[in-house]
């Protein structure tokens, strides 16, 4: 009898502990997940009810030219950011890792500080750096193309420029992950290999790179997911223009829902974005695991 009472009490205590989180989670996460699925089959406006329209939103989406432009731009942006930022972060981490004491701390501050800035601060600074008339980087463009370039209003330059801004802003995070990975590699391994007469290149290829691979895979996967969710920078810097050359999926969600009042259609796009991110990231993660296992 006492045992059963105790068990009930134990469970009640457990439920009281999880309740606050579960209540919040249900209200602002689980319910919206179900709602976004339901809404995607209706023609609801942003606020208020709509009629059931079956697969209409999806059929419309897959014949929407802007959808394909957005997918292409998202893909282009991923190419411009994911691997470059991983390589840059690895190089910086390798260099910083060899420093020590205050010099190392200072180097970390220089590379990491941009990461703690709000996105709009970042975009305003870069809009000024790249200003058509007075931007301090314009001489660079004049040197390359012969004349100043209105970077965020030029269809060829806009995506690479947003990519540079994004890498500058978020790279510090990746540096820290690599640095943590490097610190986890036991020093004895290097000593043993050095005793065997390994050159520095061999040390990197045989010790650092394979042991760092799990972190590299993590960085690549996190970056892929992050960069597919591109919205803030592109909205603030170019609003998707010029001529939709920086239009991306989440911008499409925003436009349809909050400017054109197409809640149902925006829900359908959201769901496709969600599935895309899950599929791509699971695929990439599996590929990377296989790639790592072969070594």
């Amino acid at each position: 009898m006492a045992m059963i009472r105790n068990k009930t009490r134990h469970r009640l205590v457990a439920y009281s502990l999880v309740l606050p989180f579960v209540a919040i989670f249900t209200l602002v996460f689980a319910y919206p997940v179900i709602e976004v699925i339901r809404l995607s089959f209706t023609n609801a406006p942003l606020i208020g009810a709509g009629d059931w329209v079956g697969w209409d939103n999806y059929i419309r989406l897959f014949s929407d030219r802007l959808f394909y432009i957005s997918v292409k731009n998202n893909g282009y942006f991923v190419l411009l950011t994911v691997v470059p930022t991983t390589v840059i972060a690895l190089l910086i981490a390798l260099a910083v890792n060899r420093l020590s004491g205050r010099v190392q701390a200072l180097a970390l501050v220089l590379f990491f500080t941009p990461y703690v800035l709000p996105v709009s601060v970042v975009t305003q600074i870069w809009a000024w750096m790249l200003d058509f008339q007075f931007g301090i980087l314009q001489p660079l463009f004049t040197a390359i193309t012969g004349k100043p370039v209105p970077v965020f209003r030029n269809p060829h330059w806009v995506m690479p420029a947003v990519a540079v801004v994004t890498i500058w802003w978020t790279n510090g995070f990746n540096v820290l992950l690599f640095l943590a990975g490097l610190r986890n590699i036991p020093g004895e391994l290097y000593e043993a290999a050095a005793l065997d007469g390994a050159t520095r290149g061999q040390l990197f290829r045989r010790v650092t790179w394979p042991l760092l691979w799990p972190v590299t895979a993590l960085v690549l996967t996190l970056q892929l997911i992050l960069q597919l969710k591109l919205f803030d920078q592109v909205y603030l810097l170019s609003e998707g223009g010029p001529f939709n050359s920086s239009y991306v999926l989440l911008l499409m969600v925003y436009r349809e829902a909050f400017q054109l009042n197409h809640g149902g259609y925006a829900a359908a796009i959201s769901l496709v974005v969600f599935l895309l991110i899950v599929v791509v990231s699971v695929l990439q993660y599996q590929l990377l695991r296989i790639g790592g296992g072969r070594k």
Partner: protein
Amino acid sequence: MTRRRLENIALAGITLTAGAIWIFPLYWAFVTSIRSDARVVSDGAGLIPDEFNPTSYVDALFNTSLIDWYINSIGTSLIITVVVLVTGMMCAYALSQMQFPGRRLLYLVVLASFMVPAQTLVVPQFELMNRLDLINRWGGIILPQLVVPVVIIVYKQFFDALPKEMKEAVVLDGGGDYTLLFRVYLPLNWGITTALGIITFIMSWNAFLWPFLVVTTENMMTIPVGITQVNDAFGVAYARVMSVALLAAAPVVIAYLIFQKRVTEAVMISSGVKG
């Protein structure tokens, strides 16, 4: 030996130079912000600060709603951080230390929600906030930001690793689970709590998309959303825009510079690379 030393000095020099180039945009923003608007666009304006003109800072502080935005950002970020930590810790404790029907399911749901990008939920979340009459209110900014699954995952790993004997000792003394969690385990894991607190605070302080959607009146905006209004209002007055931007960035940057080591650790712990 000496060759190695020379090499290290050279490496330090190269790395710090690269770092200086990396941080240059921030430096340039600062130099711009202490110049007059006329000086900023004049030909002779070089890389070195050559005048100290606080006009644009005064302007930023008193002719914009910056103070309101500070209050909104600090208030909402603090509430989010505290609620996320307390609810996450409690939930993780139950998941790790207690037996109850639905435990495995709950943990699976937490792990799965990790995969769902919050940005894809904005449409139903906005409708929900509208129904709760929370548009343009702190509640509307805060609520959808309260689900941070990684906090639960990190706390659970920590609780899983604690020795069983500690629990038994407290239970023998007649202490319940709440005593154990808040009087014994919490003081034991201040390191993790601070780390997760720092990460959550930075995340909510810098959040853009959601606060941008849920707030439309200027005095209810948070810092990252508000400062985009200054741009619209001032046109191309870059000295003022940079002053506002730097004032907006100052709290987190200063906090980072003071708690450098902790922030570094926090990022490493919360991403699971360092236990």
